Structure formats: structure tokens, C-alpha cells
């Protein structure tokens, strides 16, 4: 048997910690090279055994195992089982929610339209103050064309109206005539924003005639009347009230 063939046996014997048989022992005594190899293999085996034994005492800390187990539990944690909802099926709830949404949108549009219509582009301020015998009307200039306010019940003063219908602009004169007032001819025009008082009083036909109002010859006594008087105290319109109308 050659040295090369014996080397494999030497390695395996040294790894197992076994002793060579008689024939091999005789060869090792004769061959210095094989003898050295045998000693080196035995030495290496003993050193590796030391390393192996010491490494056996080492290991991962217990905390590593615990952390891994926690991670495993977290990864494989099943979501809680949800109980079936009693009552209506889900699609009914969905339809109901959609209907409620549509209703809300419709209501919003309707209310929005109304609120837009009710909000004037320019503010309108009209105020009527009634006293015992006197009604004061104040009207400031109105620029809101869409106002629902009935202008016929107010006497408003504005600038630049013609004087042909007494102290009122034409449209207001029409309103007054519809209300039973007779404009006083040749009265001065109302100043812009001027307040007009309506005074309940009794007038003689002569007084009416002096204002330029046509007087029925049948009227003989005092006549109850409403006189629209400007801030300057001058009458602007007259309305015969009560029975005096029949005089």
C-alpha cells in the first residue's frame, strides 16, 4: 500500500479518534512523512474537538427566541371574527344612505334658490311709524328692482322728479291717486329723503279750494281729511275721508 493510499485511512482514523492497526503502525514507524502526518492529524483533531466543545456552550440568548415567537404570533394573528349584523341586509342600508344624500342635495338647492331670491342686491329700508292721529312714513331710496314691497302705501321722496304732479314723482302720484289722495297743485317738490307726515284733520271746503283742489259745491261743512305734509309744513296731497266724501 502506498503512502497516498494510506493518508486517507490516517485522516479517517484520526477523525474518529481510533488507533491504527498493526500494519499501519509498522508503516508509520518506517515512513517519517506518514508519521508526521499522523501526528498532525491527531493534533488537529484534538484542537477541533476543543473548539467544538467550547462552541457547544454558546448559543443565542433566550430573548431572541422570545422575540421571534412574538413576531410569529403577530404575523399569524387572525382578525377577529365579526358577527353578522342582524336586521336589514347591507344593500338596503346603502340604498337608504343614497336616498338621504339625494334628498339633502335637493333640499339644499331649493333653499339656496329661495335665499338667493330673498336677498336683495341693494338693501331696502322702509319703516312705518303709526301715532295716535298721525302716521309717519319714511322711505329711503330703493334700488332693488325685485323688491316685493308695495310702494303704493308709501310716500317716498326722491330727487329729480318732475313737478307736474305736485310734490311727487309721476309713479308716486299714481300710487297716491289709487290710495284716494289728491295731489295739491303747484306744491314744491320733496327733497331727496324728505319725510312726509299724513295728518288727519278737518278742513273747510274753502281751505281745499285755496290749495287748488277742486271742491264740490255740495260740500258745506268741515270735511275729515288726510293731508300729506312735507317737512317744510306745506301740504303735498289731500284725501277726503269719512262721510265728507259724500258731501
Amino acid at each position: 500500500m502506498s503512502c497516498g493510499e494510506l493518508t486517507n485511512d490516517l485522516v479517517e482514523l484520526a477523525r474518529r479518534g481510533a488507533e491504527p492497526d498493526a500494519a499501519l503502525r509498522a508503516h508509520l514507524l518506517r515512513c517519517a512523512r506518514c508519521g508526521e502526518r499522523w501526528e498532525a492529524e491527531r493534533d488537529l483533531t484534538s484542537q477541533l474537538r476543543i473548539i467544538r466543545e467550547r462552541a457547544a456552550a454558546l448559543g443565542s440568548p433566550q430573548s431572541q427566541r422570545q422575540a421571534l415567537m412574538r413576531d410569529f404570533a403577530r404575523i399569524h394573528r387572525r382578525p377577529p371574527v365579526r358577527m353578522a349584523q342582524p336586521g336589514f341586509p347591507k344593500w338596503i342600508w346603502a340604498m337608504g344612505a343614497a336616498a338621504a344624500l339625494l334628498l339633502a342635495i335637493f333640499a339644499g338647492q331649493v333653499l339656496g334658490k329661495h335665499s338667493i331670491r330673498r336677498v336683495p342686491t341693494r338693501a331696502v329700508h322702509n319703516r312705518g311709524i303709526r301715532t295716535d292721529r298721525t302716521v309717519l312714513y319714511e322711505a329711503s331710496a330703493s334700488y332693488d328692482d325685485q323688491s316685493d314691497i308695495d310702494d303704493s302705501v308709501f310716500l317716498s321722496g326722491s330727487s329729480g322728479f318732475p313737478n307736474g304732479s305736485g310734490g311727487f314723482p309721476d309713479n308716486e302720484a299714481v300710487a297716491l291717486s289709487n290710495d284716494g289722495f289728491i295731489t295739491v297743485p303747484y306744491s314744491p317738490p320733496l327733497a331727496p329723503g324728505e319725510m312726509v307726515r299724513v295728518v288727519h284733520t278737518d278742513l273747510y271746503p274753502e281751505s281745499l279750494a285755496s290749495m287748488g283742489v277742486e271742491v264740490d259745491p255740495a260740500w258745506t261743512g268741515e270735511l275729515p281729511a288726510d293731508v300729506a305734509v312735507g317737512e317744510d309744513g306745506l301740504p303735498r296731497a289731500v284725501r277726503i275721508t269719512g262721510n265728507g266724501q259724500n258731501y
Partner: protein
Amino acid sequence: MQKSDEELYRLMRKGNQDAFAQLYERREPALYRFALHMSGSPAVAEEVSNEVFVQLMGPTTRFDETRGTLESFLYGIARNLVRAIRRLGPVAEPVDRPFRHDILGELITNETTAALHRTLREMPERYRDVIVLCDLEERSYEDVARLIGRPVGTVRSRLHRARALLSAKLKRLNAPSEVFSK
């Protein structure tokens, strides 16, 4: 009857934590030692053995029973991790750190042991694998051949070659002391 690694793996994938714990108890110590011997660092060994199981329970595990055993798969992961860590640079922590309390005789032994470890770390990976698995883990040639995916004859020849390299290194290491003794 004890379940095989593959059976435990299947149970583990279904969320069985006991199966995962059994696999860990069965395979982690050897994987730790393998990483320790391959890297020479307990810290690296801890990191590697932990990462192997992190990858095993992760959603992207690609273990295929038809291609090999689970144990081979685990060793493959560990080997790749050690390789990646070694590529980052030298491992600073020596493996013989826990034995520094030893007396003089043990210090000499430790010196030899440390030199052996250094030699192991400097060896080509194909030799280091077989030394660690065959001689330090005392696995059979057949086991190692299965784990590294090489024929038994290759494992045996690599082991003999690796041992010859280590023996030569030990001989050089012991030479000065022989001179000193003379």
C-alpha cells in the same frame, strides 16, 4: 412520533406556533454554531441564526420540498447571510472572547485555537464548509453532501484537503515553541 422538518414547516405556514417553536429548537443551535464557525463572531452568529428564522416565517419564503430538505434550505440561507456579512468587511469580534478568564495553559491553547479560527476564516469557503460541518458539527459525509449539494466523494476529498491545510498551519504555529523548548 417526531414530525419531520417539512411537516413542521407546513404546519408553521398555517400559523401553528408550536411547530415553529419545534423547528427553532431543533435547528437553531446548529445554525448558530455554523454561523459562529464560519464568521468567527458570536454577534454575527446571533444575527444570522435569527435572520434565518425571520426569513423562514416571512411571506416571501421560497422553500420547495421537491428541490431539497428544509435543513439544506436553512443552511443555504445561513451561508448566504454569512457571506454577505463578510463581504461588508472584517468581523471585529473574536470568537474566543468568552474564554479570556482561562489560566496560562488555557491561554496557550486559546492561542492555538484562535490561530485555527483565523486560518478557518481565511480558507476558501468550499473547504471551510466541510470542516465546519464534518469536523465541528460531526455530520456524516452523506449529510454534508446533501446540505451543500455536492457528491459524497467531493465532500471527502475537500475535507482531506482542508485538514492538510489546517495541519500545516498548526505545524507552523507550533514550530517556534519547539525551537524554544530545544
